[in-house]
């Protein structure tokens, strides 16, 4: 029995079991949100305003994690919120990874003007304070899901571009790329046949490492009221809703905040683990 426990413990220490479990749970809740959530995420029940979670005095299992200031079920809103968070992360990372990787390979392969131009764009993007640009654009266009997606995508590609360019410069000088060139392959063919398979691992690791940060940033935007507009249950705006009731109904703000924390924690942990697993030399990124 003890030996069994030791083996389980070793397995947990060696592989990211808990983070993977959390990520799978999130994927399930996000995919099947309408089927799983016990109540509708937008329906208000004014007799249940600020109903406490089941383990607090006066709480019932009907409202498992309690109800918010409008009598909406917090658990259902968190489940639907996971949909928004994962969707934002997924779309932004796909866009960022595709744009960044393409530009990085282009910069590395072509060199010269385009290389210089793309890398200066990378520097420029790093030099712009993101939150302030987000504030200005929110004033101009009004807060919306589309705006959040575009803004985050615009700021997520440089990391991919920089890493891919560095790797492309290395791969460019390998013998197999030289032979492909001699055999008459076009630059386009070389980039997707010979360079892309060499960089895809790092792109995946980088993407995983960025998920946590992205979810955090989106939650900050929603918290400040310039992200996903109400009444959509974004985790950040749920915390903002509960802020003023912290003295009387702590669960309204604490529950969604904890959901953000768990999610980001799981993705960060998984990203670190993947990075070390694929290539310990990447520790700096």
């Amino acid at each position, binding site marked *: 029995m003890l030996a069994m426990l030791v083996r389980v413990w070793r397995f947990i220490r060696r592989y990211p079991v808990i983070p993977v479990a959390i990520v799978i749970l999130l994927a399930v809740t996000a995919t099947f949100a309408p089927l799983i959530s016990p109540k509708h995420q937008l329906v208000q029940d004014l007799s249940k305003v600020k109903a406490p979670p089941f383990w607090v005095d006066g709480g019932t299992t009907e409202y498992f994690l309690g109800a918010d200031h409008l009598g909406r079920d917090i658990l259902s809103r968190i489940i639907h919120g996971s949909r928004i968070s994962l969707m934002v992360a997924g779309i932004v990372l796909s866009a960022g990874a595709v744009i960044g990787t393409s530009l990085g390979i282009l910069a590395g392969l072509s060199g010269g003007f385009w290389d210089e131009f793309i890398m200066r764009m990378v*520097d*420029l993007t790093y*030099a*712009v*304070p*993101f*939150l*302030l*640009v987000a*504030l*200005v*654009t*929110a*004033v*101009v266009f009004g807060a919306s899901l589309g705006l959040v997606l575009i803004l985050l995508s615009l700021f997520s590609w440089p990391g991919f571009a920089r890493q891919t360019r560095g790797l492309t410069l290395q791969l460019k000088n390998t013998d197999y790329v030289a032979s492909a060139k001699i055999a008459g392959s076009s630059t386009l063919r070389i980039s997707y046949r010979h360079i892309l398979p060499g960089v895809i691992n790092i792109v995946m690791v980088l993407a995983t490492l960025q998920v*946590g940060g992205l979810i*955090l940033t989106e*939650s*900050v935007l929603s*918290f*400040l*009221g*310039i992200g996903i507009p109400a009444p959509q249950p974004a985790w*950040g705006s749920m*915390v*903002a809703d509960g*802020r003023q009731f*912290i*003295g009387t109904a*702590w669960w309204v*703000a*604490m529950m969604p*905040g*904890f959901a*953000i*924390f768990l999610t*980001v*924690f799981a993705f*960060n*942990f998984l990203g670190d683990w993947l990075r070390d697993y694929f290539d310990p030399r990447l*520790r700096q990124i």
Partner: protein
Amino acid sequence: MTRFLALRSVYMILVMIGISILVFALSRMSGDPRYLYMTPGTRWSQEAWDARGKELGLDRPLVMQYVVWAAGAVRGDFGDSIWHKRNSLKVILERAPATLQLSGIAYVCAIVLGTALGVASAVTRGSMLDLVVRSFALVGQAAPPFWIALVLIYVFAVILDWLPTSRRGDWTHFVLPVTTLAWLASAGITRITRSALLEVLDSEYVKLARAKGVGRAKIVFKHALKNALVAPLTVAAILFASFITGTVVVEMVFAWPGLGRLAVEATLQTDFPLVTGLTVIFAAVFLLSSLAADLLYAYIDPRIRIY
């Protein structure tokens, strides 16, 4: 070194111009600026409309409008704030001390705490202390800033009733906001200090020192730390970026009358001159601090002076 400095400065000015064009373009995209000054529901006569356009320089080509705006911005004139009905720069300068005080204290705390914890956990690798420090850093990196702030408020203000929750005042008002900011900022420093020090402790020259019989404390503080601190130092300078986000959120939660709160308020009130002014000033501070970081880095580690 002079060449490095010159190149970096020119580059910084170019980036600044780029940001100002971006901000200007965005502010013009929002529609005719005259609408911002109109009281909703009222109408202006055509003469008044034209006169106001002339006053704001809207009858000139867009490029000229930008030049006029940029010339004003360089002198610190971003136009009158629509909400406060006063010069934007004045409003900004009134709010600046609160933010500088808060972020200054938090910044020092974060660096001291971050390096100290990083060194402590690297030296005692694998111990209970190491585990605690690493968890502290992991939580700091994964928790949203507003949530940490709310948890602290709930524990220390609601349950224990030890500390005030909002606004400026005596030192007790600083404890919670500073803790929030410093926790978030020190998380990254702790992790980087730890891994850098571990790497250096594994290097040949440290092994040599150990073989020669140098004491453990002397190895860490005299030999290893100098090389290990280069990495956290650059991070400390880059931290300014995350500090902008951090102060905005923390000032919102703790009702701190600083620049971050001003920026969000101005956004919600669509107060354009104020928002653009804040953005330009924040960007300038941000660029200057990353320039300072680069210079510091180049000064400390001559190997990177490749320009």
